[in-house]
């Protein structure tokens, strides 16, 4: 009897085990299909994003006599496409974190080697002539025998400094004002508080172009037209609402307790704000600082409209005029200026990426 019972029990167990195997096989197949589809999608999406930047950089470093070297471009593409595909394949196939790191490192090493071999000999710095030759436009034009009519370019470092000044000053003002205003909005009750919060969002929704004519007139009347300070003020005005809104979300998340605690520990309201509350919203401040800086760095519409003298040019205006003047003559120089313009934002983004990821926007509380 007992033996028989055990026998049936084990048969039943065996049956069920067989079922489970089948289920596991099916689940694995489904998972694999999903992964293949996902990675195919990622490859398809990442190539068009990566390629333009890649070409920009390659042209900047390889174009000779003003024309993009098509052969070099194709060769470089022959390197980058397989690298991107190989990257996603490694990530997809790796069984562990370690394996995927090793795989990525291997892919990168092979990619760099192939690049150095196939493209390396054609690279040069000649297109960055604008960094040391202010009147590069004439030089570039003279290469094709066209000497007259070149735009008078200021020194590129001057434009660079102007851009840094605009972006930096704008960031400093926005961060200071937004922190104080957002703290007040978050902590104090006053008449009109909720309508103010609502109008903050509406203000941000205005397309800036619609306001450009009135802005121009205002700047003209107060005498700030064609000054960096005027542009900084305009930028600050447009960036503030959103920055305040974001900072309010961060302040809302700081518990009242620690502030009260600081007061009972003998701090004044200001001391409590500086030494206890501000450190809690550090990430928020970094986030709006980076965004505001990059916004100021890439600013084009306002500087184009409100700045006239070439000593007031920013990098974006410089880029614009290079494109206007030399494009069609020398693509290499245009690309090189583009790379030069791109690098600071890229560095800033990479340095601050960790903080930007944490940015979340709190809801409007009445």
């Amino acid at each position: 009897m007992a033996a028989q019972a055990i026998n049936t029990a084990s048969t039943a167990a065996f049956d069920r085990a067989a079922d489970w195997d089948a289920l596991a096989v099916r689940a694995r197949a489904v998972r694999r299909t999903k992964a293949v589809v996902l990675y195919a999608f990622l490859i398809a999406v990442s190539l068009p994003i990566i390629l333009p930047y890649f070409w920009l950089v390659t042209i900047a470093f390889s174009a000779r006599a003003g024309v993009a070297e098509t052969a070099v471009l194709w060769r470089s593409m022959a390197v980058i496409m397989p690298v991107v595909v190989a990257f996603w394949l490694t990530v997809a196939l790796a069984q562990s974190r370690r394996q995927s790191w090793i795989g990525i490192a291997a892919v990168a090493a092979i990619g760099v080697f192939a690049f150095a071999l196939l493209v390396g000999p054609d690279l040069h710095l000649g297109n960055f002539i604008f960094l040391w030759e202010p009147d590069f436009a004439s030089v570039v034009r003279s290469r094709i025998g066209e000497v007259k009519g070149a735009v008078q370019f200021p020194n590129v470092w001057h434009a660079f400094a102007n851009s840094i000044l605009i972006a930096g000053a704008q960031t400093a003002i926005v961060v200071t004002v937004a922190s104080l205003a957002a703290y007040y909005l978050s902590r104090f009750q006053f008449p009109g508080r909720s309508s103010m919060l609502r109008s903050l969002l509406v203000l941000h929704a205005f397309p800036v172009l619609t306001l450009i004519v009135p802005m121009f007139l205002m700047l003209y009347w107060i005498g700030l037209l064609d000054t960096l300070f005027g542009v900084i003020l305009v930028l600050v005005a447009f960036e503030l609402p959103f920055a305040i809104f974001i900072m309010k979300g961060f302040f809302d998340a700081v518990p009242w307790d620690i502030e009260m605690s600081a007061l009972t520990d003998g701090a004044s309201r200001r001391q409590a704000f500086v030494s206890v509350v501000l450190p809690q919203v550090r990430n928020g401040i970094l986030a709006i600082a980076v965004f505001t800086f990059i916004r100021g760095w890439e600013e084009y519409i306002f500087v184009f409209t409100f700045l006239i003298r070439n000593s007031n040019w920013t990098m974006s205006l410089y880029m614009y005029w290079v494109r206007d003047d030399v494009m069609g003559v020398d693509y290499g120089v245009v690309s090189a200026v583009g790379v030069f313009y791109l690098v600071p934002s890229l560095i800033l983004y990479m340095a601050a990426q960790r903080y930007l990821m944490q940015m979340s926007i709190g809801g409007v509380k009445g």
Partner: protein
Amino acid sequence: MAKIEFRNVVKRFGAVEVIPDLNLVIEDGEFVALLGPSGCGKSTSLFMLAGIYVPSGGELLFDGHVVNEVETRDRNVGVVFQSYALYPHMSVRDNILFPLRFKKTPRDEALARVTAAADLVRVAELLDRRPSELSGGQQQRVALARALVKEPQLLLLDEPLSNLDASLRLSMRTEIKSLHAQLGVTTVLVTHDQIEATTMADRIICMRAGRIEQVGTPDDLYLRPSSLFVAGFIGSPPINLVAGEAEDGMVTVNGARFPVEGASGSLTVGLRPEHLRIGDTGFAGRIAQIEPMGREILYVVETGMGAVRVLEQGSSAGHSTGEQVKIGFLSENSLVFETERQKLIAGAHVREPV
């Protein structure tokens, strides 16, 4: 050290009157507990002492001086918040050091005092950690050290034990009490836990909806609760309260009748479960439920006046469910309240029915 006095203190938030009229004296060096249900204004009273809230009316006095307008930072009050409110971006050392920053204490002396405070609450080995790396009990101790390091004249504790587990709560209770004995600082403890209040405080202030119901020692509140509210709030398991009508020296409660002395009219009889015993005399009932509580057994007995809780010593039940029993009590342990006004009738008692 300070003597604290509330004189007709009122606190309103907008149109809502949270504290209508508070009168209270706390003696120098005393340990009092503000006890009451959630939302009765305990924290509000505490924050007025700390200076975070300004009273809407009346006077608040420290050592006979009105302090209504005195800024929080000038009051020299140590507060432990319910959430501990440690500064997350500072190490434990910097947390405890923080109050001394504003007193311009010389660096060496300040560090020595931090060490002393940390030793006092036994967190000396945690000084370099961040608050997020501490357990709840350790955070609580750090908060205590931070409140004590500036040698406050008044220590305020807002539900300091509510976030701790049962065993930790027990040991922190003892520790806070011995700290008070050691330092002698006037201490106000806010709690909604009656055991916390009765075990730690010299005096309990029982509050309800912004008003003081009763002030007294734990014994006063337990043995002579001035109102039905206090009787129901103090004691665990809660007191048995049954309403009835008294006539000709007998009170009728549902079906049961007791002899009553010193009272008449609509009455509420209060009998604490631990004052009842199952025996040969008293009123009859049937055991409906048995709840062993470790060293005690709680019986729920169905009687003529409804379900009655009886607490008996011992770790094993001497009776079984469904058993018919008689419940007796000593007359002097019974409490009689006026149902209408909810007040205790002093000297009135009921006796076991014969």
